[in-house]
């Protein structure tokens, strides 16, 4: 069974089905979309069951010719790095759609169609093992998000949507040039025109070229993560996006940046990546502290959570930059954990925004008295984001710090302050919103969570405990892949060092290639 293809494209089919429902039936769109989105979720559980942890290569691989003229194929596969990110996506989308049944009031048809289209883009980008196929899915997931922010967003939605679009496009188009150059180099060396990732991994570019190509890839992914100082689009997009858009943006889209580093930028250009890692670790650390400090002064809850994402994603990048098993595993684990806890935080803010149409912390206070169930859930969610032991956030951050201490001890020490600050800004926000006297009369009639809303949060809260208390099933499926990944990386670097002892190893490669073609390397 072409499992990965089914998981990727069932949301697209679902979107087409939702398109058939007439516009008038506003709740039906959400209900149908939710029901249909359970199909890819069920299929992804099947994928999990079929996953062989010991196999460190791509699994459930499918391949078909797509654009042979360009050497582009439809190639998909999943490994220990992408496995849980796919699951995170198929898990979060039904939750968001369920939440949307009550939260989205206008143009429900288009909203649900776009969500499902975006799911196809996200899963496709995660399972693609052909660079051009990846690029196509990467853009396909961007456009629906642009619409979600621009149509269903808040007051400054157009500004935020256009900013999101332009920031991402600058990065991704330069990455496309780098992809084309890489493919050309591979063709010069082997005579084979292909965008197949496995083949392109074999290209050993000279260091000077690697630096340029890595920079182009890194820019695209660093914008998406977003890494300090390229993060300014994120608070705008998050603040203006509708709740569902924020959840998916924080939960999955940002992970595409970190995933891109792991899957593409680092292994394709290992030498340049090794050079850049200290810079990335430094920027990640700045992002951790800066994001946390900015959180402290935010009056708007959504903006606060947006900046907390900058801080948390800093941890992900720091763990990755350590390039050891703990660091990378922690980084992967934190991607999942952040997806759950920040997604849930946005949903929690969405609940009171839906009731009061404001997200300003100052407007609230003492909500616990009125909404005890909500208060309890919000507390668990908040603590999971803080990184309380026993919840998901702790495991990832712990592993990241463990890994980072090994490679970048100073950065790790500074990053620890990010954990402390996270406790400060989140607990403080919680205190101001939920505890104390209920002194704003507008809050006196707030309804507690409905059954539907509880069922939105329930799976998230359960998973937070599972991932916090019993990380083994997750880590054991990542570990062999991560170990093999790092070993491959070391082997590549060792080969380069062995060839001539300097970092100019690839020059021979490109010279031979250029001579074979008889073409100048650059005419302009």
């Amino acid at each position: 069974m072409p499992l990965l293809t089914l998981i990727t494209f069932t949301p697209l089919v679902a979107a087409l089905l939702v398109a058939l429902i007439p516009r008038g039936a506003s709740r039906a769109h959400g209900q149908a979309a939710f029901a249909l989105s359970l199909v890819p979720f069920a299929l992804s559980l099947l994928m999990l069951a079929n996953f062989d942890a010991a196999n460190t290569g791509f699994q459930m691989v499918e391949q078909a010719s797509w654009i042979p003229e360009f050497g582009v194929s439809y190639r998909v596969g999943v490994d220990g790095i992408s496995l849980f990110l796919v699951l995170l996506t198929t898990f979060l989308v039904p939750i968001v759609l369920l939440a949307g049944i009550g939260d989205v009031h206008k143009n429900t048809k288009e909203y649900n169609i776009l969500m499902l289209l975006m799911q196809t883009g996200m899963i496709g980008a995660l399972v693609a093992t052909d660079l051009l196929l990846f690029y196509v899915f990467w853009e396909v997931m961007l456009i629906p998000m642009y619409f979600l922010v621009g149509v269903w967003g808040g007051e400054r939605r157009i500004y935020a949507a256009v900013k999101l679009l332009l920031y991402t496009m600058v990065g991704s188009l330069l990455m496309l040039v780098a992809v084309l150059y890489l493919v050309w180099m591979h063709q010069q060396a082997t005579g084979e025109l292909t965008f197949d990732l496995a083949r392109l991994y074999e290209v050993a570019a000279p260091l000077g070229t690697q630096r340029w190509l890595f920079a182009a890839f890194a820019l695209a992914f660093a914008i998406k993560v977003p890494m300090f100082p390229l993060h300014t689009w994120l608070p705008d997009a998050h603040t203006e996006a509708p709740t569902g858009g924020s959840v998916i943006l924080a939960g999955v889209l940002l992970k595409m940046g970190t995933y891109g580093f792991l899957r593409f930028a680092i292994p394709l250009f290992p030498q340049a990546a090794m050079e850049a890692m200290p810079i990335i670790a430094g920027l990640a650390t700045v992002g951790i502290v800066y994001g946390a400090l900015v959180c402290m002064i935010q009056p708007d809850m959504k903006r606060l959570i947006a900046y907390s994402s900058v801080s948390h994603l800093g941890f992900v990048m720091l763990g990755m930059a350590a390039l050891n098993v703990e660091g990378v595993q922690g980084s992967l684990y934190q991607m999942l954990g952040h997806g759950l806890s920040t997604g849930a935080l946005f949903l929690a803010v969405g609940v009171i925004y839906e009731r009061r149409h404001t997200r300003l912390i100052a407007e609230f206070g003492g909500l616990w008295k009125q909404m005890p169930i909500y208060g309890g859930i919000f507390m668990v969610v908040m603590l999971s984001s803080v990184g309380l032991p026993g919840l998901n956030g702790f495991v990832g951050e712990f592993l990241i710090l463990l890994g980072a201490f090994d490679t970048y001890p100073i950065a790790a020490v500074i990053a620890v302050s990010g954990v402390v600050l996270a406790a400060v800004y989140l607990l403080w926000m919680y205190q101001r919103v939920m505890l104390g006297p209920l002194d704003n009369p507008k809050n006196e009639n707030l309804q507690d969570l409905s059954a539907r809303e509880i069922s939105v949060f329930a799976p998230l809260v359960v998973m937070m405990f599972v991932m916090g208390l019993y990380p083994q099933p997750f880590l054991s499926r990542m570990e062999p892949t991560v170990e093999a990944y790092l070993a491959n990386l070391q082997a590549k670097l060792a080969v380069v060092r062995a060839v001539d002892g300097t970092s100019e190893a690839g020059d021979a490669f490109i010279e031979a290639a250029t001579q074979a073609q008889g073409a100048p390397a650059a005419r302009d």
Partner: protein
Amino acid sequence: MTEVDVSWSALLPLLLLSSTSVLVLLADLFLRGPSRAPLAWLGLVGLAATAASAISLWDVETTTLVGSFIVDRYGLFFVVLFCGATAVTLLMSMSFLEQTEIRTGDYYSLVLFSSVGMLLMAMAADLLVVFIGLEIMSVAAYALAGMQRSRSQSTEAALKYFLMGAFASGFLLFGIALLYGATGSTNLLTIAAVIEGKSVADDVLLAGGLGLLLVGFGFKIAAVPFHLWTPDVYEGSPTSVTAFMAVGVKAAAFAAFARIFLDVFGEPTPAWQGLLWVLAVLTMTVGNVTAVVQSNVKRMLAYSSIAHAGYLLVGVVVGGDAGGSALLFYIAAYAVMTLGAFAVLVAAGKADEPAETLDDLAGLGFRHPLLGLAMAVFMLSLAGIPPLVGFVGKLYLFSAAVNEGFIWLTVIGVLNSVVSVYYYAGVIVRMYMTAAPVDAVALPRRPAVALALVLTVVATIAAGVVPSALLQLAQASFTGLG
């Protein structure tokens, strides 16, 4: 006098198309009632026959009329493209003329006459035939630009277009004269044989002739700095005519331009390539940056068409089989999505007030979901978002450029694409993210332009998702050249 050889079968597309034009002109006299739509249907039948005859010649390679007229895949590719573009133009014209006071049947025959000129330009093997084709195409287009006589902008457009066009023709003709002086012939094949092995730079006549030719074609393809007429003319002309000019006239000029510069003059000298490099960069940059500030969609699309001419010039700079076939693919892609964008404007017009500005599109996305969706598809495709045909076109062009070592040209090209995303997204913003005006009325049903939209939307998506067939076609058509 040499005996004039005539191969009627090779001339079949030309004969079919020109007799259709004449037939439409005559049929107008016998048509009763106010509607001129039957003329358009007659034209469509003629175009279908022309395209079919061109396809039947696919495996033929020959010249006729003393070597002045050539049948090859390159020319036939363009003939089929012109037939398609003209057919879509006729369809949208049927819906557009209802919104204006244009009631005369000669509109349709002028469109068809213009397409005869395009066909001649694509199949010409002699510089004078190129010139005659260009004039037939242009004179008809001047008249079409001024058809909306109640609008002063339309008259202004016609006059401006005519004056600038006359200048361009002058440059072109002077260039042809110099080339004749340098080589002793106006026949492209003879010229190619004479200059074989010669360096263009050494021969003043040759270099001067080529330079003047470049200026002449530069006007027609609206390359910067010869583009200044474009925005006014595109804005002032009736929308359906603007679409025809943006696609047909530009493609025809590129057809002759690329045949002369990529085939006849072969491998370019570095200086010549450098000149084209600058022209390409200027054209795409000026086009894109200026498009950003436009509030009139027709004017914005005019600047966008300048920008796309810049991308197309990348194909000329790169040259070779890769650059040439990428150029052909991109022209086809550009034609489909640009025609579609203008067709949406036609469909979005009120009964007596054609849609032109961004405000006319406000809220369209949710008031008329299918129309909005079509426009969104065209805008995203023009911006180069996958998996639409515009993306494949840019990918093809830029990968050809990277393969030939034009890294900086490619980087400038993609940065230009980012700029273009801004204004194409601006249309989407208006359609989906701003409210409809309070006095918005439902648009009347317009089956003809709806058909045009279905065709262009399907082509934009299909050729983007499964581009192999069109890629092979473009490759086969260009590799057949020379």
